[in-house]
């Protein structure tokens, strides 16, 4: 386990050096990501200015939802990019090379592309989250803070699971896999708001099929002391994200098994 971490750090170091080579361009790109993502929140702010409230939710409360989702997605975006480009690895036959190395394929795929410039998303989401935390006036206990972090981690594992599932599909088909982007980018877009503002069927989809609720309404209801909060379910909900990741990893192993019998 320790040398997996060592290898991972090595991959990051290499990525950093490669991407920082053109310092000016890197900074511009980070700024670019920062600006493109912050416009989203501007839109939300402007709407609150016009409408005043959103189905009983205030702007600071929505800011917390927004921050959690974007932080979760940002970490996955930084480290899960390898899965985005994975179909190409299969197509060129370079996946064979990963199988020839005595390390986990997942770790190696992550290592193929670490996109540090997406830190722009973190830089914009963190202040918004912190502002929301401050402005809601909610009472913060260590337990709640832990749950908040848990929600972010749960969301991150969920998104990573989605990335992995999307990549796993390319073991079986090379056709248009972009449709899975609906779940990752669309999921982020959806998660910016509390899930209960959406139509029931939509809410159910993002609770039972893609458990976005585990990083959204369930834990945050508990944190914000909402009337219909479910303390037990809400506190354990982020674990669903980890479960989802586990499922995705199992699917990946199946995919690798399939690859072993059919080649590329």
């Amino acid at each position, binding site marked *: 386990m320790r040398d997996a971490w060592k290898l991972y750090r090595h991959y990051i170091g290499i990525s950093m050096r490669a991407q920082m080579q053109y310092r000016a*361009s890197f900074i511009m790109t980070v700024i670019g990501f920062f600006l493109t993502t912050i416009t*989203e929140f501007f839109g939300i702010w402007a709407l609150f200015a016009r409408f005043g409230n959103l189905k009983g939710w205030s702007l600071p409360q929505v800011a917390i939802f927004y921050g959690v989702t974007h932080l979760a997605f940002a970490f996955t975006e930084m480290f899960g990019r390898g899965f985005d480009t994975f179909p190409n690895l299969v197509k060129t036959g370079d996946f064979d090379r990963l199988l020839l190395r005595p390390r986990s394929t997942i770790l190696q795929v992550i290592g193929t592309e670490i996109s540090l410039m997406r830190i722009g998303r973190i830089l914009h989401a963190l202040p918004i989250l912190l502002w929301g935390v401050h402005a809601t006036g909610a009472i913060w206990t260590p337990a709640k803070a832990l749950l908040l972090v848990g929600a972010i981690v749960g969301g991150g594992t969920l998104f990573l699971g989605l990335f992995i599932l999307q990549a796993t599909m390319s073991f079986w088909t090379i056709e248009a896999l972009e449709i899975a982007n*609906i779940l990752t980018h669309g999921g982020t877009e959806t998660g910016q708001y509390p899930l209960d503002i959406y139509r029931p069927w939509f809410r159910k989809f993002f609770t039972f099929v893609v458990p976005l609720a585990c990083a959204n309404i369930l834990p945050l209801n508990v944190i914000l002391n909402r009337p219909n909060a479910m303390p037990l379910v809400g506190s354990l909900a982020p674990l669903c994200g980890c479960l989802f990741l586990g499922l995705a990893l199992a699917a990946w192993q199946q995919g690798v098994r399939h690859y072993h019998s059919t080649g590329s």
Partner: protein
Amino acid sequence: MRGYLAITAARFRVLLQYRAAAIAGIATQLFWGLIRMMIFLAFYASSTRPQPMSRTDMVTYIWLGQAMLGLLPWNFDADVRNMLRTGSVAYELVRPLDLYTHWYCRGFAQRVAPTLMRSIPLFIVAMLWFGMRPPPSAASGAAWLLTTLGATLLNTAFMTLVTLTMFWTLSGEGMLRLAPFVVYLFSGMLLPLAFWPDGAQPLLRLLPFRGMVDVPFRVYLGQISPTQALGEFTVQLLWITVLVLAGRGLLARGTRRLVIQGG
């Protein structure tokens, strides 16, 4: 002229071949439209304050946005980018066709072909199931088509101009990344400009971006009358001229630089 039409047609055909991608694209846009619609409807249900746009108009605006998404200057011509980056643009300069016009036509076709393909199914689905309304009158509809043409020409001019800035900044990636955000924000794609704070309205009026989305959409909704639309179309044309001239200027100076430097 025939040469330019041929280029446009050829590009059209190439882009029409990407069918699988088109289906994935339509599904994505349906999803996006749905999310935005649900969010806006939730806002409308939460307040009785008067709003700059009615609920039904808002819904139509959202779906228009999804249908016309392909027209926006977001995908910068990868081939042209590569040409500029590697310097092989020098070969292009030898061709008899005027280079700017050549690239402009390519950009135009790149916007129109996929949009035609995607917008029609989106229109149908949105009108049948999601409450999208047609324009209030034939005159509005015609005015809408006119201003949409203006928007497309404007978008192409903008995109060509931004791509040409690559002549000047080699690692032009940064610039290219900022441009879509600027468009997304100030054109009305993120939020209809009427919903922006009142204090921002003068600034928005000055910028060319409203002509890309907000103006044609409001013409469609009838918020801008057909006669007023003609005035807006003139404004679009003015901006198009400015951007085209700027683009041609950049190309000319950049070409001179290239020739002097020797590529």
